[in-house]
């Protein structure tokens, strides 16, 4: 089981992830041709200008209107990238298989960042329950997606601290990672791919066409 999960399943995950993202990307480009305005309006300078204002914390008015959400959202997303890529255990496995390795986060830092991700997820959950405007638009799938995103971190944390049966937890951890990677291209987690394009398009339409700001 362990061999399957840490071998072929990883390949399946990456094929799903990279293949899925490529498929969605090409499909977006093709359907954008049918959308008469997208290519004519797209503008590099204004697209990047808008992206910048939405990638820098507090650069947009909406971010300044809710400090806690902004800080937690940024922390969550940054850790989502940092942790899996710079985790010692991941790099050890990677270099064991292919050779290359790179700088790692200290175990202590990684631990704290994982706790941060989990707390942020709890914040998102609380937000979904407590704010009427969020609760009103919440479906079961929103809880599932949040669980899918945070499960690798919870199980990874448990594995690192050797809670429960180590081997079982590691297998669950790997499966949860596979599920997340596989889910990204085919669920609303695809905002990872689409965000820069939707933002850049709106920035272009506001900036290049309408001479206005969108942040």
């Amino acid at each position, binding site marked *: 089981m362990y061999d399957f999960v840490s071998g072929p399943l990883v390949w399946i995950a990456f094929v799903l992830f990279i293949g899925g993202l490529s498929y969605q990307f090409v499909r977006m480009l093709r359907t954008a041709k049918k959308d008469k305005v997208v290519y004519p309006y797209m503008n590099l300078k204004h697209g990047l200008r808008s992206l910048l204002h939405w990638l820098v914390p507090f650069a947009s008015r909406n971010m300044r209107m809710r400090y806690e959400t902004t800080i937690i959202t940024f922390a969550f997303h940054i850790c989502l990238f940092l942790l899996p890529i710079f985790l010692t255990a991941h790099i050890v496995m990677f270099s064991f298989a292919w050779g290359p390795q790179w700088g790692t986060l200290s175990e202590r830092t990684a631990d704290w960042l994982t706790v941060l991700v989990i707390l942020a997820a709890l914040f998102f959950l609380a937000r979904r329950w407590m704010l009427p405007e969020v609760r*009103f*638009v919440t479906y079961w799938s929103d809880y599932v997606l949040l669980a899918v995103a945070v499960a690798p971190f919870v199980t990874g944390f448990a594995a690192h601290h050797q809670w429960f049966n180590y081997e079982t937890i590691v297998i669950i951890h790997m499966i949860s990672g596979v599920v997340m990677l596989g889910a990204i291209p085919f669920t609303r987690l695809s*905002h990872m791919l689409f965000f820069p394009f*939707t933002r850049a398009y709106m920035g272009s339409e506001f900036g290049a066409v309408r001479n206005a700001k969108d942040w």
Partner: protein
Amino acid sequence: MPRTGNSEEWNGGEIMGLPATILPELPVVSDIGLDENAKRLTPERIAEVVNRIIDKETAARFRVYLNTCVHCGLCSDACHWFLSNNRDPRFSPVGKVKQTLWELMKRKGKVPPEFIKECSRIAQTECNVCRKCSMYCPFGIDIAYLLITVRRICHQLGIVPQFMQDTVNSHAATFNQMWVKQDEWIDTLQWQEEEARSEVVTARIPLDKEGADVLYSVIAPEPKILAQLIGNMAQIMAVARIDWTMPSFDGWDNSNMAMFSGDFEIMGRVERAHHEAALKLKVKRIVMGECGHAFRGAVYDGPKWLAWREPPVPVVHAVDFYHELITSGRIKIARKFEEPVTVQEPCNIVRGRGLGTKLREIIAATCADFRPAEPAFEHNYCCGAGGGVINCGPPWKTSRVKGNSVKAEQLAATKAHIVITPCHNCHSGIEDIISGYKLGMHVKFFSEILMQVMEIPDELRAE
């Protein structure tokens, strides 16, 4: 049927989470355009139209927007409807999409006529498609575009508020918004020319003058009920010595309610007629009166539908034009307007053209006591009337005024006496808010201020 927040009947969707939100019942509004027409709908027809519009008329943006939205609700604080209705989630931008488009998609168009009525109410009367929410959505999702797609579906099913549909019918039949007949149009211009000449001797309203620098276009409510605005413009043009003209033929009206009812075929014809009038008269540019949606139609939505990247003739909004006249010295300011003023920044020219700074500059040049409203510029609240909402007529006026209490608070905080509204929809919408909330203020177009402070040289002044 009473509308309750949790009724499966109208929102059709699940509301997750604990405890269940208790939402107050909203008053029922009767509108023949919705109630009577819905009786003729069949489920098959609804499904056919919904799926046709979604499959054939939408593409990348629609699909990506729906797949990207993570239901975070961060767009809500942009919306004056949401803020003014005690943060009722049914009025948040994403809440409106959930109650309409998400359900239509989920059920693949298999919804009862009642549901389409609700879609029309939500998309047509409770959203001004002002596009502020796309400045608050972290992903920049164009929520107004999604709701306009809902309007498109409702239009194709014939479920459009009666007053709105009548306006569109007028566009279709007469190429103007208010059933103005050709002779009435020309008579009104001649009458206003006479009026203008009683103040400025050189004032003329030249009709069909080929090769003029400027074609001046207005919305049909001007000749119909606000004719003095045309007379004012004749005086301003005379004092500024502008070579201008107005068409005597169809295409003089730059308004376009079909753009907001989802009737894009009529929208395209109206915009084409407007631009063709300018091309026929070989003018250098179109200057349009103080109207926001007309600008949007002529510069963005119309050309988009007609597959023109840009309008064929440059279109200049009145605010931009006055700015040019004042800063170039063609118009001199003799005295400043003394009463305290604030401004309603029209969405379609501030968020839609970035004219916020120029608007402030012309106010600074003409008014002694300007009280800015907050939030400002692109972040200003919509007047609540735009996007075709006021054109849905008297049945919907109560909900429209109630749905913009934040505007009343924003204006009241300025303690100004006059609200400058360089847009017809804003003008009427703010007037309703002022009377609805008893603010004791008055609205004025910028041209009305300009008329009071502009220097008329002695040689032009009528005896």
